[in-house]
């Protein structure tokens, strides 16, 4: 048997959490560095995955061991070109979040352990190929995030944590019913129970049943994305969460929703996916414009970034339900892009808060003069988020728009407004916070980024540029897996991918 890379990748952060917890409590100077060093191990392992990953469809690094044979539950892991980039993103954002958590005063050991456990859960979700294992990880993630928001958040943290938990748990309950229904269908057809993803893919489900299952899985994932109108937990959770929480929440956890659509809703229920794609696309476009419009008038910088996520995730969803190669590729790469750029923006807002103890835009002004490096990094991240050509956001948004134009031109045209609105809310915020003279005395002597903080942004800036200038490094690995999803939809329904192609046809 091959080396169980994925199991090890899940186990390492768990062990790291244990190690951090058993460190002597009074040696506070040790906690963060140890956690940081240990969190670099998964980065290395994910790097090996990336290097050894072959650009082909199907699952790689597969491992399977029976857990409960009678019910057909097994520890089945494996990744394809959709899971790989998200695992990489997770492993990169965790050490960054840890490095940005120096201001955590309340039991830092527990906090760091929670972040590491969260990482283990996230990697588990992205690599699970058994629906029960997937569900367990999907739910397990809620626990560390609940504590991260509820213990280390700001004033209204309990409200935000409970809201976040109940919202998601409601969706998960529906999904669990769907998972059980799938396994019952499987047992009726084949005579043996199974929760195995590959096994369930072979099921032929009646269109009426597909619609129900699409709905229950879809609602669970739509809450996670979050799609309009089930997005209201997000501004609360983001604003209340500590910086590391916001970074991981926006950077990775929201992608559980979009990933779920790609992994389950499209391949398992292709008929319903084609039928209800217009509904999903409509909600996605509403989210794009609505999220952006609401972001424009936010007075709190963190809330502004939170609503921008609603808008950006709308783009990803629009790309996914376009059922075109560009749309799906754009969706997947935009998941990574959003994680990097929004992660950077949340880190910046967090560092600003540590200095000034406010997040209100009106409290700032002229900071470009007092903290030029900070302003530079902020503007760079802003441009990446807006989708300036040459930076990562452009690649994703462009592919999504091209891909969705082929299937749904009107939707794509309305979505383009989101690009313009993004420029408005982010540049307008930049103007109010950074330009002009520092007219308030508190803004005259704000220290600029120190070495540690600057180093935090180095990997993010490198990634923004790399993915902006040479997205092929990821797209190569993504494409076979997204193509497989479209092939499956074409094979099982009468949907035909529009032949509108930009550049060289992929066939």
């Amino acid at each position: 048997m091959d080396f169980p890379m994925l199991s090890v990748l899940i186990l390492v952060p768990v062990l790291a959490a244990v190690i951090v917890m058993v460190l002597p409590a009074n040696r506070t100077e040790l906690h963060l560095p140890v956690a940081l060093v240990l969190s670099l191990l998964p980065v290395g392992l994910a790097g090996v995955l990336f290097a050894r990953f072959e650009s082909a469809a199907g699952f790689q690094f597969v491992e399977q061991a029976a857990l409960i044979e009678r019910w057909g539950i097994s520890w089945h892991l494996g990744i394809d070109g959709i899971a790989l980039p998200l695992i990489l993103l997770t492993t990169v954002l965790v050490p960054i979040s840890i490095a940005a958590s120096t201001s955590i005063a309340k039991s830092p050991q527990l906090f760091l352990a929670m972040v590491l456990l969260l990482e283990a859960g996230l990697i588990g979700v992205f690599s699970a190929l058994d629906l029960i294992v997937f569900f367990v990880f999907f739910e397990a993630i809620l626990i560390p995030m609940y504590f991260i928001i509820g213990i280390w958040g700001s004033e209204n943290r309990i409200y935000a944590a409970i809201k976040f938990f109940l919202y998601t748990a409601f969706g998960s309950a529906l999904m669990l019913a769907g998972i059980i229904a799938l396994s019952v269908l499987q047992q009726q057809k084949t005579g043996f129970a199974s929760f195995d993803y590959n096994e369930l893919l072979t099921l032929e489900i009646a269109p009426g049943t597909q619609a129900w299952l699409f709905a229950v899985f879809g609602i669970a994932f739509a809450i996670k994305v979050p799609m309009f109108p089930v997005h209201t937990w997000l501004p609360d959770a983001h604003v209340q969460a500590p910086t590391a929480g916001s970074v991981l929440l926006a950077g990775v956890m929201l992608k559980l929703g979009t990933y779920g659509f790609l992994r389950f809703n499209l391949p398992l229920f292709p008929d319903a996916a084609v039928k209800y794609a217009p509904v999903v696309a409509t909600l996605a476009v509403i989210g794009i414009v609505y999220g952006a419009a609401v972001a424009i008038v936010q007075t709190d910088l963190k809330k502004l970034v939170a609503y921008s996520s609603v808008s950006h995730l709308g783009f990803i969803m629009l790309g996914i339900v376009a059922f075109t190669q560009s749309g799906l590729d754009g969706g997947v790469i935009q998941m990574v892009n959003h994680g990097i750029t929004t992660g950077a923006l949340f880190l910046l807002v967090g560092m600003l808060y540590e200095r000034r103890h406010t997040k209100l835009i009106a409290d700032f002004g002229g900071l470009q003069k007092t903290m030029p490096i900070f302003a530079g990094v902020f503007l760079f991240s802003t441009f990446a988020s807006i989708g300036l050509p040459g930076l990562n956001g452009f690649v994703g948004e462009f592919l999504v728009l091209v891909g969705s134009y082929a299937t749904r031109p009107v939707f794509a045209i309305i979505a383009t407004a989101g690009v313009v609105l993004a420029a408005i809310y982010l540049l307008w915020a930049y103007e109010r916070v950074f330009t002009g003279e520092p007219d308030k005395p508190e803004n005259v002597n704000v220290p600029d980024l120190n070495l540690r903080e600057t180093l935090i942004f180095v990997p993010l800036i490198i990634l923004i540029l790399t993915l902006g200038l040479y997205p092929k490094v990821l797209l190569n690995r993504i494409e076979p897996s997204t193509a497989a999803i479209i092939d499956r939809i074409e094979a099982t329904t009468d949907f035909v991918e529009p032949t509108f192609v930009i550049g060289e046809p992929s066939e």
Partner: protein
Amino acid sequence: MNASENAFWVDRFYGKTIVLPGKKLAQGMASFDSFFVDGAVNGVAGVVKRIGVSLKPLQSGYVRSYGATFVAGVIGLVIFFLTRGSL
């Protein structure tokens, strides 16, 4: 002269026709978001909470009250089966 100094009032025109109404619209959407969308969510939570509170007296902790409920249930079931049998 005045017209060219003010760039033919193009900026002011756009400000009044696009920027200001746009901001008003965005403000309206933000209020809609907090009052209606989030209000509906918190409303549902509030209803569930109120149902919970209204059921709270049932869990009084007094064994005699549970006993009374039990007896009432038995009587109810007896009546139910007797009348159903006669139908």
